[in-house]
């Protein structure tokens, strides 16, 4: 009786894990179709987050329900935590580069909240921002920013960007 109930519990946990894996795999398939058919980089990033975060979390939960060993479950928890921490970092970097470059279809945007920032004068990740105050000048805080925007580009090394 005890062995039978334990067997039934194992089959039930396998079934729940299989359902979670199926849901994650279906999300991954939908995201791949979206990645192939959406028009620009930001839309493709929207599709790409499905297998990166939610799909992988569902699959990891399903795998943990299948394996059921303590070491394996904690390692799979670690994988899920790594994905949750590292996916926004990559998405932030890629989204910022896409908005700077031509990865955004501007005609598809309703609101562009980054349009007021001087993106054309952005010096890139290796150089300091043009509006960072390198000298303390409390007299003219507003006017100096507009005139000083192209200044750091002239002094830098010639680059194809």
């Amino acid at each position, binding site marked *: 009786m005890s062995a039978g109930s334990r067997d039934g519990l194992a089959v039930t946990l396998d079934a729940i894990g*299989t359902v979670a894996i199926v849901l994650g795999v279906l999300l991954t398939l939908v995201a791949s179709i979206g990645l192939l058919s959406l028009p620009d980089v930001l839309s493709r990033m929207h599709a790409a987050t499905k297998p990166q975060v939610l799909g992988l979390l569902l699959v990891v939960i399903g795998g943990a329900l299948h394996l059921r060993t303590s070491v394996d479950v904690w390692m799979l928890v670690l994988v899920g935590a790594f994905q949750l921490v590292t996916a926004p970092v*990559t998405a932030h970097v890629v989204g910022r580069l896409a908005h700077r470059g031509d990865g955004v279809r501007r005609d598809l945007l309703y609101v562009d909240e980054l349009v007021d920032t001087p993106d054309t004068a952005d010096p890139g990740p290796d150089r300091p921002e043009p509006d960072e105050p390198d000298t303390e000048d409390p007299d003219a805080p507003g006017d100096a920013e507009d005139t000083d925007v192209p200044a750091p580009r002239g002094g830098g090394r010639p680059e194809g960007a």
Partner: protein
Amino acid sequence: MTGLPALLDAVLVVCLVLLGISALLVVVRLLRGPTGLDRLVALDVLVAEFLCGLVVYAALTGDSALVPVVVAISLVGFLGSTTVARFVRRGTDR
């Protein structure tokens, strides 16, 4: 009761096949993608699908030897994509 585990294993095999199909679609985007950022996003998705495939395979066989591999690949995939994103500049488009 004896038919259910076999059915679950068959469902997991079908999941592996679906993951292979979606990986093929992502590879098409990886080869076609007009800018380097498209390729970068596609490569991230490919790494995530590879992780999913490893976890499904471990769940199918009950072999837990692949679980440290999953941890290592999740770390290395993050480092690679972020490092490549640092070298994609505006105007170069690749």
